[in-house]
Structures are given as structure tokens and as C-alpha cells.
């Protein structure tokens, strides 16, 4: 087991002929991920690091049996790529790395994915890795180690920081999911936590949150109501100046200003330990197991 991706994951890379797409295709292949196809409209017949390129996702899936897509296309074309990915019969999981997709596009895309029953991770995320099995993303594979800790994070690079310290402390990971920092995302903390709760390989979860929104507060409630596996947390932005990103009208709806202090209090109230600095997480996690 593991969550969302494993040794049966077969990946199609959308935007494979671009700089980042090609670079990270190599990274995924080097890690051992089964990258079976690439898509760039009009580039059918080319190969990128030995991976065949197709004009469209449906054909790529039909010819190669891909069940997972990763999207590297620029924001102007990413909305189309997201619809195309979920529309391909047999698609199970789509990871969208692209940053800068208009949030109102994501509103409709979110509903489309619900309708199609396809799991979307991101956008604006580093992807997902089940160490030793499959990496679908841009995460540096060498810092991960197979094990029993699930990691879920709104941040990219902060996740690497935390995973690196977990690995150094001997705490391997079952699956690490970077859910992305945008307003509208396909997979949120609740989805990831419920997947970790039922995953037999996962024994404990590290959650990395940040200021803005109320996802962490909802996660705290979910943990209290639905989880018996231990969770530890870190919240970035404890010293961030207020007024970033969230407008006040947004804060009204959320019923909260989305500060780090509120989020930390929400976790502590339900007995979830919160690290003061990222390097404290491994010890806190080890103690909870």
C-alpha cells in the first residue's frame, strides 16, 4: 500500500518537451518511476529521455496504459491540460505542478474532477512520492526513505526540509504529498489525512501548514474526530506580517484571519503537538509513535 501512487503507477508527462518537463522526466525515471508517455501537442513521434511523445493524452493513455498524469505546461495552457488529463478514460491521478493558474478556472476544474472521479493533486505543488515505489513530481528523490510516516504539506521546499530531517533521524516515509499553496486545490489536508488513516503502511503523519485560510483548523477537528494515528504539525509564517494574500472579505467568510497562532492553538487544543521550528519535528513525531 501507500497513498495515491505506488509501484503500479504509470505516468504520462504533459509538457514533456519543455525545459522543466524534460528535466523532471529524467528525475522521475532516475528515481525508478514508470514514466511511459509524454504529451506535447504537435510533437508526436519525438522521444524525451527515451519516453515516446504523443499529441494528446487520450492517445498516450490508450497506447501506454498510463493511469497518472503530471502537468508541467505554462499557466496559459494549464487549464486546458487539466481538463484533458481528467477526460482521458482510465486516468486515476493528476498532479499539477504549474504555478499561476487563475483561481476561477480552478473552481470549475475542481467540479469537473469530482464528476470524473479523478484525484487531483495541486496545482502549484511539488507532487507526490511513495519512497522506493514511485515519484510523481519535482521532489528531490534522494532525501526520501521508505518507511511509515505520511507527510502532507501546503509548501514545496519546506516539505523537503522536513523530510530531510525525518530521514536523517531514521524516520522513513510511506507517502509524501505536497498539496500546493493555491486557494483552490484538488486534494486538501482532510483528503490526505483520511487516506493516511486507512493506509496500513502509515503509522504516523506529519502535517505542514502555513498562514491563510482555515484548512489547518479543519484538519485539527478531523484528527480529533476521525484519527487514531498520531499526527504532529508545523505551521510556517508565525512571524509573517499580516495582510498577505487574504483580503478581509475572504477572512469574513472563513470566520478567521488565518494566522499561525490560531492554527497552532487549534492543533494544541486537540492534543496534536506543534513544532516551534522545523528541525524539532522528527523528535516530536518519534515520541508520538
Amino acid at each position, binding site marked *: 500500500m501507500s497513498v495515491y501512487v505506488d509501484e503500479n503507477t504509470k505516468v504520462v508527462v504533459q509538457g514533456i518537451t519543455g525545459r522543466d518537463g524534460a528535466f523532471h522526466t529524467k528525475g522521475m525515471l532516475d528515481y525508478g518511476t514508470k514514466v511511459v508517455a509524454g504529451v506535447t501537442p504537435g510533437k508526436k513521434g519525438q522521444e524525451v529521455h527515451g519516453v515516446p511523445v504523443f499529441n494528446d493524452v487520450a492517445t498516450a493513455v490508450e497506447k501506454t496504459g498510463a493511469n497518472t498524469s503530471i502537468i508541467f505546461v505554462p499557466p496559459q495552457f494549464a487549464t486546458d491540460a487539466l481538463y484533458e488529463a481528467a477526460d482521458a478514460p482510465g486516468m486515476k491521478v493528476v498532479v499539477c505542478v504549474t504555478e499561476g493558474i487563475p483561481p476561477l478556472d480552478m*473552481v*470549475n476544474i475542481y467540479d469537473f474532477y469530482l464528476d470524473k472521479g479523478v484525484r487531483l493533486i495541486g496545482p502549484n505543488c511539488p507532487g507526490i512520492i511513495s519512497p522506493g515505489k514511485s515519484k510523481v513530481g519535482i521532489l528531490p528523490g534522494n532525501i526520501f526513505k521508505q518507511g511509515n510516516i505520511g507527510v502532507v504539506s501546503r509548501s514545496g521546499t519546506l516539505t523537503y*526540509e522536513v523530510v530531510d530531517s525525518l530521514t536523517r533521524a531514521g524516520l522513513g516515509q510511506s507517502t509524501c504529498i505536497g498539496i500546493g499553496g493555491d486557494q483552490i486545490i484538488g486534494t486538501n489536508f482532510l483528503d490526505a489525512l483520511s487516506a493516511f488513516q486507512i493506509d496500513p503502511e502509515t503509522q504516523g503523519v506529519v502535517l505542514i501548514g*502555513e498562514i491563510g485560510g482555515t484548512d489547518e483548523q479543519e484538519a485539527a477537528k478531523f484528527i480529533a474526530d476521525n484519527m487514531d494515528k498520531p499526527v504532529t504539525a508545523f505551521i510556517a509564517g508565525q512571524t509573517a506580517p499580516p495582510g498577505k494574500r487574504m483580503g478581509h472579505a*475572504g477572512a*469574513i*467568510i472563513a470566520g478567521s484571519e488565518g494566522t499561525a497562532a490560531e492554527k497552532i492553538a487549534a492543533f494544541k487544543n486537540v492534543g496534536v503537538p506543534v513544532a516551534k521550528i522545523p528541525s524539532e519535528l522528527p523528535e516530536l513525531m518519534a515520541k508520538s509513535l
Partner: protein
Amino acid sequence: MKLQEYQTKSIFEERYGIPTVEGAVASSPEEARAIAEKLRSRVAIKAQVLVGGRGKAGGIKLAENPDDAFEKASAILGMDIKGINVKKVLVVKAINIAQEAYVGVVLDRKRKCPVVIVSGEGGVEIEVVAKETPEKVHQFPINPCAGMRPYKARTIIGKLYDDQNKIKAGAKILMGLYKAFIDCDASLAEINPLVVTAEGDVLAVDSKMVLDDNGLFRHENLAALRNLDEENPAENEAREAGLSFVKLDGNIGCVVNGAGLAMATMDLVKHFGAEPANFLDIGGSSNPEKVVTALKIITRDPNVKVILFNIFGGITRCDDVANGLIKALDEFKVDVPILVRLTGTNENEAREILSRANLPMFTTMDKVVSEAAKLAS
């Protein structure tokens, strides 16, 4: 990106048929007088700034006649409101207000759809109303597939008015406001107050729109409306280079990749007893030029005593960052110590590049930040 009131007013009126108050924008007292002459009425002179609370700060005044408009505009133009110099005023007909309400559209990240907010308490800050009398604020999530339908608009506006004519007029305005919100990729579209005049007309008296930066690539005409002179010049320069930068008051310059890690780095700087000089995210897929610009911006701040790089490579390649750092040091002199922590994608290549320049390279975030805090104290 925030738009000025006069910019939003003209978008609402010209493109979405929302009735607003007659008037025009002026950059000088002479222009204000000319507009008042044309309007043949008492006028309101409103400072055009992107900060709230301009009324309380004296940025809105009534004028009885064109000469008075000249006087009042002279007083407001050049005024400082929350650190912003007033360069333009909106001159509009003074109206007789019978009733004020609030109507706004925002994107709700939790419900993943647009939400319309209305309140019978208009003309005041909606945040305050929501806090003190939440029962007076009504929220309506809108199914994005259905969009804003006339029946829905009438239902929502029915929370504000009993009179059918007013409901009809208000619903038409809400249809326009919702369309503006969607068309312009806004994160907020707001009319506050929505006014019923003594004559029974329903009008948008103050119009506000905040556009989501991610949508600007498909709205060239809107992107061109950016009010550069109200934004921090360093933050503008950073944005043009694809960096996300916020100036702070401390003395440790931070160059980090990723917003989460950048915030965690700032948290750690404080944890070790120092203060960050900035938030700076060089973003993913960095090219060396971004690093050069980042260093240029940071070294211009005289408070900075030490510069700290904290890079964990994923889509950002450590060698790109190292090359940018070397390039910057070739182009201009940096007088403060630079401490570098690079790890992740292409880390070994980066180490080699930096060792040729004799730059110390740290392996952990705790070490590099504690060392920087020591040097800065």
C-alpha cells in the same frame, strides 16, 4: 492587484451596465473645477488611493460650486493618506442618499465557489459589521456552473429591499457585478455603498475591485491599469523579475526558494533572536538572472548586515542559484557577508561553483540561520 475607484467605476459602468454617479477623474484643481462646471451641481471630491479609511483621513469632501471644488481638490491632492500621496481625485455629483447597503462578490476557498455577500448596513466597513452584528451579513454561495441567474439575484437583493422596483434595479446591478467578477478574474468585486437615492434610483456610489494576479495574463487591458506609484518600487522591480518580495524592518537579508520555506526561514531568524530584512521567494524554475536581481534589491537596503541564502532545490536547481550568485558578485560589490545553504537538485554542481568563489556553504537551515543571527547582532 487593486484597482482605483475611478478605474473600477468606469469598468462597471461601461462594460457591465452598472449605474454609477456621474463624474470624472481629475489630477489638478483646475480639472476638478472644470468637471464641477460641467456637472452643474454640488459635487463630492474623493481621493483616489488604494488604502481604506480615506473618508476618516479627510480624503472625501463636498463642494458647493466649481470654485469650491477647486479649493477642496487643492486640499486633497498632495495629501498624505496612510503614507500614500494623493495624485488623483474623483469628482462626482453629490446625491441625496435615502438608503445604503453593501454588496460584494468574493472567492471562497473552502466552498470552492464565488460567494455573494450582502448587508443592509452599507457605507461602513463590512468587516466591522460582520464582527459586531453578524446577523446583518448574508452570504450566498453561487454554483459556478449555473452562474448568477436572475431569480438568484432577485432573492439576494430581496434581503435588502421590499419594493419590487428597487429589487429589480438591484438585481440587475448584482448580475453585472457578478459578471465583472468572473470576466475580470477578480478576487473581490464590491459596491459599498449601494445607494437608493431620495428620487428612488439605485446606484453604485463606491466601486472596488481586486484582481487576482494569476488571471492578468489574459487581461492585458486590465494589467495596464496597475497603479505603480502606490506600490513599493523594490516590490515592483521584484515582481517584474518574477520574484516575490516584501520589505521588512530587520537586518538579515533572506533569499529563499518557496513561500513556505521563506516564511519558516523568517520564523527561524526570529527564533534565534534576530529580525529578517525581507521576505523573498525566488520561486521555482529559477534562472540565474533572478538571483542577480534579488541580490541587487537586498543590497540596496542599508539596514542589511548579512545576507542569507536558504535554498532547497526541487524545481529550482542549486547550480542556477550558485551561478546567479557568482554572476551578481562579478557585476557589483557586496559589502556584507553572504552565508549560503544550498541542498537538493544539482547540489554537487552548486558546491563546486561556490567553492571556486570561496563562499562558505552550510548544510542545515538551523546552522546557517543561527550563524547569520550571530553576525547580525
